[in-house]
């Protein structure tokens, strides 16, 4: 029973990745720009010779396979995707796309995932506390503040933070993942330097998304507190702590987990803006530059990796959810 269910989920995952990868191939083709020509024009502007540019374009197109019929290109594309061979960057030739991505990925995962989980944790507990048995006075006053935070987009909050902490008070660096002078190595100095650079972007994400988590959790927690099992737990003399965690929070958490999986999907898109604002060397920045330069293979590669990450997270939630909620366990009896 479980094996059949798992097989279905994996097939679904494959279908999602395939569809997304196909769209990913077609969409940039609709853009009127020719990437090779763009690149060459850039070169000429910076002092190169203007002669024989048409021949050069043709030569490069041949090299990257851009002269072949669309269907052939599509076939080649799918084949290489399946082998994780993402090709070469046009803009940074001869850098391999996979290398560019692997260099950016740790920054994105380190910053965004950490910030998201942090915001999720703090926001969820905060929301639950605000709702708990009509809340204490202090937490009650927090609710409007939380609502304001929920309304702010995080790149905007990021700009404000940069202006205040980096530009005006100079407490943190303006941008980048680490100082230009730092030597990337696993030394205490470098790690501290990276941490110092990550605080502002992380703070902007955490602050801006705590509100959303807290509001959603508050609503769920109020609903859950009306359930019969909450009253019954109290009638059995269960301690407030036990009722809060094992009964209230535990049940109100279920929809939050679904939302978390969706949120991680949105992250990749939101990352572009945050990383852009802070000049952070992550996946979002890489994607932004690639789009600017019509660097098809990098776009393909980054989007493909993002799709894989989202689909993977969805599968993970599908697998985790039955552990959290026995009522949705496949095959009935658990």
């Amino acid at each position, binding site marked *: 029973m479980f094996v059949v269910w798992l097989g279905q989920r994996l097939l679904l995952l494959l279908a999602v990745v395939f569809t997304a990868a196909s769209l990913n191939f077609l969409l940039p083709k609709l853009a009127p720009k020719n990437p090779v020509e763009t690149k060459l024009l850039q070169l000429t502007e910076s002092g190169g010779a203007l002669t024989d540019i048409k021949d050069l374009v043709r030569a490069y197109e041949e090299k990257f396979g851009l002269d072949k019929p669309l269907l052939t290109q599509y076939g080649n594309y799918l084949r290489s995707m399946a082998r994780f061979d993402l090709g070469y960057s046009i803009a940074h030739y001869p850098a391999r796309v996979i290398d560019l991505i692997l260099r950016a990925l740790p920054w994105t995962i380190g910053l965004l995932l950490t910030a998201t989980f942090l915001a999720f944790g703090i926001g969820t507990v905060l929301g639950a506390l605000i709702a708990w048995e009509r809340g204490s006075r202090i937490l009650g006053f927090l609710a409007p503040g939380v609502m304001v935070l929920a309304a702010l987009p995080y790149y905007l909050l990021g700009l404000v933070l940069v202006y205040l902490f980096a530009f005006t008070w100079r407490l943190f660096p303006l941008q980048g993942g680490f100082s230009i002078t730092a030597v990337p190595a696993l030394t205490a100095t470098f790690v501290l330097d990276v941490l110092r650079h990550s605080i502002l972007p992380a703070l902007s994400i955490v602050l801006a998304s705590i509100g959303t988590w807290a509001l959603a959790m508050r609503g769920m927690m109020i609903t859950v507190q009306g359930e019969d099992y909450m009253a019954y737990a*109290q009638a*059995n*003399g269960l*301690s407030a702590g036990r009722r809060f965690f094992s009964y209230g929070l535990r*049940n109100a958490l279920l929809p939050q987990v679904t939302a978390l999986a969706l949120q991680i999907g949105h992250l990749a898109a939101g990352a572009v803006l945050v990383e852009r604002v802070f000049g952070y060397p992550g996946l979002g920045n890489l994607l932004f530059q690639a789009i600017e330069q019509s660097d098809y293979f990098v776009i393909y590669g980054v989007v493909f990796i993002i799709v894989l990450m989202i689909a993977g997270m969805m599968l993970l939630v599908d697998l985790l959810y039955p552990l959290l909620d*026995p009522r949705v366990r496949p095959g009935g009896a*658990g």
Partner: protein
Amino acid sequence: MSGVPLLEIAGLEVRYELVAGPVLAVRDVSLTLRPGQRLGLVGESGSGKTTVALAVMGLLRPPGHVAAGSIRLDGQELVGLHPAAHAAMRLSKVAYVPQGAMNSLNPVLRIGTSIGHALAAHGIRLSRAALDAKVAGLLDRVGLPGAVAARYPHELSGGMKQRVCIAIAISLGPRLIIADEPTSALDVVTQRQVMQTLRAAQEALGSAMILIGHDMGLMAQSVDSMAVMREGHLEEEGAAGAIFSRPAHPYTAELIRSVPVVGGPSKGSKVPDPGTEAQPLLAFEAAGKSYGGGLFGRGAIPALHPLSFSLPATAARIVAVVGQSGSGKTTLGNMALGFTPASTGSVRFAGQDVTGMRGAARLGFRRAVQAVFQDPYSAFNPFYRVGRSLMVPLLQLGVAADRAEARATMEIACRHVGLDPALLDRFAHELSGGQRQRLMVARALTLRPRLLVADEPVSMVDASLRAAILDLLVELRDRHRISILYITHDLATAYAVSDSVLVLHRGRVVEAGDPAEVFVSPAHPYTRLLIDCLPWPDPEHPWGNPVEEAALQREIKDAEGDPPVLRPGAGRLALQCPGLSISR
């Protein structure tokens, strides 16, 4: 038995301080309870009976509070007790068996874990093995197998969940058990099992019990003294036997009288049978329903085995469909409403297949067949005034030409069901359960239907309202010539109002005929079991025991698959069960 009281409530007054002014929920209530005594706290919704229990347990929610009086348990004063001290007494000294056992257990915890939490809350720290043994022992005491400990609540039936709650209640050997309508959501057979389990557990502990409820039949069979409450006040108190034989207060007498009894007065139709008709009003033609099966063919599960019966078109009739939960009675009702298409055979209304209709015919059918459901709380859209729920079908189905006419029709219907038409401008949450259920009937009435499908319309309402709604059903039949499919697990009410009865067991009709025949002298062992389980409003009437039930259950099993027992009057339904003679 010692004369020292276990619980002494004196001059209790509970007030809710609302913005509009204080509301007295309980005033001047005094009660005493000896160890081992079973007290029935009787009253309708809003009478303050549950509020008294909450005060004893220290669970009144602000703005409610004890304004005056004292509550002494085992000599200890509970009014003004520190909340932590009160919490420590819950379960260990005062245990609570909840009303909604369906939802009282945390859905994400295994049963064993829930029981473990209750024990741990009172300082009982056990090793894994010792806890497992303790849980298994508790489950055994309420007649559940030890394997239940590893199950989740959604995997258990309502009766099993209620037993789990009883197991938790007795886990610390409390001095007092408060059971708040512990069986109100259960069918009669399960109700008797659970109630007998609760009594046995309470007697084994020697603790006292307060049973809160409004069902006088259940009280007569379960308690030895009673206290009757109305509007926050104690109207009468005394030994159960004395109260049932000579109620001192007219309200008590009214409550006892309002309990329908099998063999008592019944309100069958006086209109003679029309004889054979070319086209009956409603006809099941070898109609059956099964779920599952299909492509991967793991075998379909029958919810209702094929059956044929019909309701006459020229005379209005009330046909009762009775059985336990899972007997297929609600499936039958939904098929008549056209909500559930038949898997085999067909259901015809005035000659037309109820699932095959389109356009105007379908609208006509929707108008002619109306429904009243069990739960009046979830039947209204909370966003709109209730009047809107009544008006939409009137305009949609073309019964009323405009809003003014619709309004007039609605107001007439409201008066018919004994409601003030001003209630139409309220929201559902502003109405009581009884008012909502009357509105449901009014809604059905405005459309002047020919058939009403009433699925447990009185199982969630108070005794006095139950009588009023049953009277209303009879009036619909006699004055408005509306036929009714009355679906219920309560045989006493079915007896009181119906003209014919179908007894369903596991999707098959086991017995059918006139209610006076079927209910007064049941022929099939299953019908006998249902009758035996009815709690009579008479403490002297026997309520059966597990040994008798086991014997009947064996008989029922042996009779499974037999053709139904047709009693006098069954011919009127033209009942046939195709396939039965083939399968066995």
